[in-house]
């Protein structure tokens, strides 16, 4: 025990923990509670039945009443433990409830109905995740369609972004040509004015291209990201020109130099941009909200948002859908945490 305390209170170099160390750990503990707590609460809640969700005060874990299938009864009957009266201490199955009395049977004698006071029994429950919340999503709501819309938009847009941005970055990093300064200035200029302040004309342009209310209307307008061009260009600048010259001496065409030499060597930066692009697209909200109008074209985010409007009180499906929407992000994060963190820090956000 003393060893454990010693281990926990050990700091690198200095002997005992200073009060500031305690304060730090207290702050971090509070942080974990505030950051993780709500999300975990949401995930746990998504496994509760609607009845359980309506309960106040709520319980942490999802409970469901224990039931039993008895002869002579078509439906499974809920089990109760009797707290008072002649049957006190026994477990009984409730057949029906009338006013303040409840008609029960003992599982050993399913034919013999006994009336007891409602106040004299408590339900028998056990922890049981309500998976039907999730099942409903697939059966009643067209979850797969939204999931597919989001996936298609995310992957296609990311592929286009990577190709188009890396080509532009290559030109800006590795060629000297007249007008390069102007292009770089243009890219910086557009960087300053985000999509969210040109919604009206962007809507018109997208409409003129006939891409409104189609996945392409979401994919194409955001494909040439200035951030992506900058990120890749900065990385490509670090590739020595001598390598490109060597490839030219090896009779590689410029296009071949691009995709056989420069692209593979920029893999770390490309990976960062790919992850960023996937995140942006998967979570994108404002532009799809404007560009997509028929609900069959909705992305997951839009569907989720419109459901929360339609199903104000039907939290059971809404919570399950929220969990499924955040799941891919959580998985990506769990595996690629380091990449994402450095990537986002290096671009300074969007």
């Amino acid at each position, binding site marked *: 025990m003393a060893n454990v305390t010693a281990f926990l209170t050990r700091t690198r170099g200095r002997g005992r923990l200073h009060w500031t160390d305690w304060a730090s750990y207290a702050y971090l503990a509070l942080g974990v509670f505030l950051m993780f707590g709500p999300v975990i609460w949401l995930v746990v809640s998504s496994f509760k039945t609607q009845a359980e969700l309506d309960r106040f005060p709520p319980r942490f874990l999802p409970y469901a009443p224990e039931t039993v299938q008895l002869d002579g009864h078509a439906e499974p009957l809920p089990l109760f433990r009797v707290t008072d009266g002649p049957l006190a201490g026994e477990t009984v199955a409730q057949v029906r409830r009338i006013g303040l009395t409840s008609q029960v049977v003992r599982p050993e004698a399913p034919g013999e109905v006994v009336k007891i006071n409602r106040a004299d029994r408590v339900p028998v429950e056990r922890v049981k995740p309500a998976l039907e919340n999730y099942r409903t999503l697939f059966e009643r709501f067209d979850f797969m369609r939204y999931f597919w819309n989001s996936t298609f938009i995310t992957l296609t847009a990311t592929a286009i972004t990577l190709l188009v941005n890396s080509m532009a970055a290559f030109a800006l990093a590795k060629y000297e040509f007249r007008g390069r300064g102007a292009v770089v200035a243009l890219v910086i200029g557009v960087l300053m004015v985000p999509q969210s302040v040109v919604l009206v004309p962007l809507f018109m342009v997208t409409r003129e291209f006939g891409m409104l209310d189609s996945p392409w209307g979401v994919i194409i307008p955001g494909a040439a990201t200035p951030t992506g061009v900058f990120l890749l260009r900065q990385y490509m600048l670090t590739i*020595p020109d001598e390598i490109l*010259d*060597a490839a*030219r*001496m*090896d*009779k590689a065409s410029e296009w*071949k130099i691009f995709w056989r030499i420069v692209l593979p*060597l920029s*893999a770390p930066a490309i990976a960062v941009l790919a992850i960023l692009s996937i995140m942006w697209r998967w979570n994108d909200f404002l532009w799809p909200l404007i560009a997509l109008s028929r609900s069959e074209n909705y992305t997951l985010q839009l569907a989720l948002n419109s459901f929360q409007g339609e199903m104000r009180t039907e939290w059971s499906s809404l919570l399950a859908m929220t969990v499924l929407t955040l799941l891919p992000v959580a998985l990506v994060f769990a595996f690629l945490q380091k990449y994402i963190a450095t990537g986002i820090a290096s671009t300074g956000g969007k």
Partner: protein
Amino acid sequence: MTTAGEQTPHISRRTARLELRNVTKSFGKAEVIRGVDLTVEQGEFCVFVGPSGCGKSTLLRMISGLENVTAGEIRIGGDVVNDVPAAERGLAMVFQSYALYPHMSVRQNLSFGLENLRTPRGQIAETVEEVAAMLQIDMLLDRRPKDLSGGQRQRVAIGRAVVREPRIFLFDEPLSNLDAELRVEMRGEISRLHARLGNTMVYVTHDQVEAMTMADRIVVLRDGQVEQVGAPLELYNSPANLFVAGFIGSPRMNFLTGRVEAGRLRLDNGQMVDVPHGKFSLEDGAAVTLGVRPNHLIPVAETVSGLHATVRGIEQLGGDSYVHAVTAAGEAVSLHRPGQTDLTVGAEVYLEPDPDQLHLFDTATGRALRADPARDSSAEKS
């Protein structure tokens, strides 16, 4: 290592003559190469040497086709190649940083160029194996460049050039990233490679030792201009000007300024030096610079014509000694003696230049002063 005459069935020997005619390069208004004329003969090992910024690498890149030519003409094997892209000039280049493709294995590095030439796969494999064996990198073929030592990377870079069977090899300071010991080893190896393949090679370096040891012919460049072209010893023995004299040879040649006085030389420190008659064409009163290499200065007992100097520093290497001294006029002189010396710091020495090894330069133009052969012989007769 490799010796000439081994069987290399898959590498054909191609070679070509390289001619530069008034080749000029400018970046905007800055002229970095000013009218270079040069012919590198077929099979010759030609070294471009000069201080950094002299344009030697630019000139090499112009030959390679990676840099275009502002004016003048480059001919390879007789054909003007000014407008031929780099890849089609039939050259190969070894870069200073090696420029290996970091994401490819050694084998892929060697075969990339051949694939681009659409060489059949089987032939690529054979050529790569053969070159790898020749350069002793055959056991490294599946490694990535980052897993190789400096010397091994250097060999791969050379190998990548060799597989291309170029008419001319271009080397851009290939040894500058290696440590001293490896550099000596690789010097020998590149020389042997030349002996074996017999291609024309153009080699750029700032290191005059590399130039002296490897070259058939050295081209000394300064400020984008050719200062002198010649065989190594030719440059050492009869430098055309002050710059070449100072650049070739280590330690540097000593320079002392003075004036011609009645066929003799009066140095600025007041001392007189005898100059062999007939070897130089001298005019009375001309400002000249005397050049004498450190190993041609001999300490002597006090004489009339000797140089008087005070020892300021001594480097004893065991086999050789270097003595750094200062003349009465404050000019630094160094001398190189074989063996060990018993001179000490602060000692006064008298130095006699070897009269047969004197160099005289016109102080104003820097040009070497030599009697032209006609006047030379007439002077002897008189």
